[in-house]
């Protein structure tokens, strides 16, 4: 395999996270939808910053924009900044204990969500008020199990 391991598990994860971003959720659960694609971008740019960088994140963001019907470039910008922050701090993020890492991921997720709110405000109306911030907490909640699953299941597939 080429440098950095196999590509297809990463692609499969990407398709799954894209589906999770628009999968129907019952009632108020909608507000709690975690930023799945952003978390995947954080994971891969933390593990393999040389392979999955800001350009990849940006391109994935464009696909997410079309999928969610937002202004083209919105999620692209958000994910590029997420990848940038992660790669900037990846050396530290990787050696953090799990709780500290989760807090840092929460901060990156907050940047992601707030840029989204800001762009929505520029291009239209922002509805929902503080409910908009709930995805940050979902990100914090799902990060530890997500990291565990990825480390145990997906990384071995990539590096096998």
């Amino acid at each position, binding site marked *: 395999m080429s440098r950095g391991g196999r590509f297809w598990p990463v692609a499969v994860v990407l398709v799954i996270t894209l589906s999770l971003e*628009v999968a129907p959720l019952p009632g108020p659960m909608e507000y709690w939808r975690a930023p799945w694609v952003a978390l995947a971008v954080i994971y891969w740019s933390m593990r393999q910053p040389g392979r999955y960088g800001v350009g990849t994140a940006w391109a994935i963001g464009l*696909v997410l924009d079309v999928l969610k019907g937002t202004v083209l470039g919105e999620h*692209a910008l958000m994910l590029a900044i997420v990848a940038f922050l992660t790669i900037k701090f990846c050396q530290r993020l990787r050696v953090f204990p799990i709780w500290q890492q989760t807090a840092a991921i929460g901060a990156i997720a907050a940047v992601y969500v707030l840029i989204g709110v800001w762009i929505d405000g520029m291009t239209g109306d922002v509805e929902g008020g503080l409910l908009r911030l709930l995805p940050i907490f979902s990100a914090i909640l799902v990060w530890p199990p997500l990291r565990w699953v990825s480390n145990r299941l997906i990384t071995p597939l990539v590096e096998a």
Partner: protein
Amino acid sequence: MFLRGPSLGTRVILLGIFSVLLMYLDHREDHLGAFRNALSVAVYPVRVAVDLPSRGLGWMAETVSSRDRLLDENRRLREERLQFLARLQRMEALQAENTRLRALLDSTPRLADRVLVANILSVDLDPFQHRLVIDKGSSDGAYIGQAMLDADGIVGQITRVEPYSSEAILISDPSHATPIEVNRNGLRTIALGTGDSSRVILPFLPNNADIQIDDLLVSSGLGGAFPPGYPVGRVVEIERLPGEPFARVIAEPTGALNREREVLLVWHRAARAPAEDPESPSPAPDEPESQAPQRVGTE
């Protein structure tokens, strides 16, 4: 990675500038339709895959429902059909009469509308906006601004058309306004969405306006977005505020905005339909009833 190409910071700044440019072109100028269409074909499988579980559940429910229930439903549907057919006979006579009268009055005859059934994909776009995705796109002749109905009234309109799917906005979205009139007296106004799918508000009615609880609101057809005469809602609450110039009037949409799985797309612009959809000739004025539901595309 620092050995080749621009540094990380430079790259992210370049991408940021490019994103802002894209957003400007897409939002302000609307230039990126073709690019979005190309990408949308790539994400269409994701949308369909996301829709599969709920479609599967529906299929399961149909498959395992008991014979008695199916028979029951069948009987009920048959009765309903008979009733509707009877009503339709009268309606055809009335329509012919209407066309004659309109000819006498020298006004243009109303064209009958052509409809197509579209399925709603259970895809959640944004919890704060009332938008949805349907499985008909430009390949089916759908166009931007096309009205969307269900069995009981107007549901919304199409805001973006892609080759195989479209995005639509519901009349309950806070950024949507529906031109309406009161069916009882023809009083015209505008209904705004509230973000609550069981409420629309009529904010521009003066305190002395002739409006009552339970008045039926129908689309007025002004503005050209919606065909005239379809039900939009029923007034449920009127509060006349003496200190304010306008009354607070709330209506409940007649269409099932958040419960339906299927909607009807309506072609009502005589000028647009033939150009966009060659297989349906524009209906001749003397036989308006020929354009009853032509195609029924269900799963």
